[in-house]
């Protein structure tokens, strides 16, 4: 970890501690505080991206991956809660590493919401998609998990059902109810279950069908143009 990274991480953590402290003082502005914490966790990634002075070629590759993710979300606009976009973002993370996965996820969520509608949910969706890409990148880096179809599907299903779905449910919980009680939380999380199951199915299906071919194409681009190679080595 470089010094700059440490500084950024420290700053973000201090900010988060301050926010959490404020949330204890200020009563019941759960949504505002949690969204600020969320944005705060995402900021270091954007800073690092900016500071690293990425090459135009690196930008082009992740822009293409984001474009594919957005298109995959938009062409399924007629089928609610069944979007392959999380699968595509995970593939980006697997193929290009955690930071590229994070950026692709966050930016895809932000840009595709120009079509689906921006709102109070945007930071949460950005965080959810970014997390999908980041986790995929971390778990599949350096051969920690094998890049087989079964491993990818299992990973996608577990991560969506266990982490991303509940995260998005938390957003709707905070948006829908003024007071968070045990009952309202249970109601929101339970009613989110079928939606999450659908979305998990979509993610697993995407990883199973297009995972291998898309990773093959990413490897081809990496080899042909020598992009994002440095990231693989660290």
């Amino acid at each position, binding site marked *: 970890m470089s010094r700059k990274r440490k500084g950024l991480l420290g700053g973000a953590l201090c900010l988060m501690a301050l926010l959490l402290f404020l949330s204890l003082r200020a009563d019941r502005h759960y949504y505002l505080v949690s969204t600020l914490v969320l944005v705060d966790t995402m900021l270091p990634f954007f800073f690092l*991206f*900016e500071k690293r002075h990425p090459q135009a*070629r690196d*930008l082009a590759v992740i822009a293409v991956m984001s474009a594919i993710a957005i298109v995959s979300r938009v062409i399924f606009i007629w089928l609610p809660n069944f979007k392959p976009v999380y699968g595509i973002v995970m593939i980006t993370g697997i193929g290009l590493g955690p930071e590229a996965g994070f950026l692709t996820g966050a*930016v895809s969520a932000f*840009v595709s919401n120009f079509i689906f509608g921006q709102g109070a949910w945007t930071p949460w969706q950005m965080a959810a998609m970014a997390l999908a890409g980041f986790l995929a990148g971390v778990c599949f880096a350096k051969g920690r998990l094998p890049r087989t179809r079964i491993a990818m599907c299992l990973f996608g299903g577990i991560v969506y059902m266990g982490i991303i779905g509940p995260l998005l449910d938390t957003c709707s919980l905070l948006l829908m109810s003024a007071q968070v009680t045990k009952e309202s939380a249970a109601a929101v999380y339970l009613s989110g279950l079928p939606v999450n199951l659908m979305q998990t199915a979509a993610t697993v299906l995407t990883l199973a069908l297009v995972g291998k071919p898309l990773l093959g194409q990413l490897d081809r681009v990496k080899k042909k143009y020598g992009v994002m190679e440095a990231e693989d080595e660290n």
Partner: protein
Amino acid sequence: MKTETGHPAVTLLFFVCIIFCAAFFSHPVYIVISFASAFVYSVVLKGRRAFSRGLCLSAGCVLLGFVYGLYHHFGVTVLIGASANALTLEALQAGLSLWGRIGAVLLWLYDMNTVMTKDKVVYLFGKISPRLSLYVSILLRLAPQIREKKRHIKEAQEGIGKGARQGTLFARVRNAGQLPSAITSWAFDHGMEEAMSMKSRGYGLKGRTAFSLYRFDHRDRTLVIVMATLMSLVLMAALFDQTKALYQPSFSAVPVTSFSFVFYAAYAALCLSPCLVDTSVRGFYTQKSVGK
């Protein structure tokens, strides 16, 4: 001048402030002002379609407010019934205020989505993070290009008898599956070509600036000063607890004094400022053209 053509930073400042107020002010007068001006602004922006949309939203909010009132039973003023399931005035008021706030925020978001177009967002982004903004603008350009390329590839496939609607069922599935693969390969190579041409034009070199259409001129300055004045008045109201109301156990708010009306006027002026700018300037231009 329309607010739409003003500097994006001013527009963003306005919307952030106004949505924040709409979400947190619980006093009924402020809710009504915010809701009504958001409604009016959407009609100014989008015309008749926004009018019917806004009416539906208002009706929905009132309905949901009543539903909230039916399901909550706090408060001291009982309207109907005597048991623990009685319909109380306070629950009804609280429900209407809650849904009024939600409706106002939704309307403001709708207005913001109309006014803050993609180019403005990318421009503002570019001020903070030029590379991220470049990434987003590459992306926004790529999406329609991909759609166009998809059409080309489809036609080419059909031209050689390998379209998604040709051949046996098995062949059709295979042909359809080849389409996304062809598109992604094209998109990567195209992106690479663009990256190379960017590099050969000096991307990433020192001293390169980004072109933008916006400049911060006197109109924007005036607007910011006026808005800041109104905002400080509204902030004063908030500090005096004028914007707050409690609905439990009974409706209570800071007593209305003559100063309250100053605050109401300031909030209304702030909420309506984009409409006022839009319509007054429109009137000015039509008069001028009639005079000629």
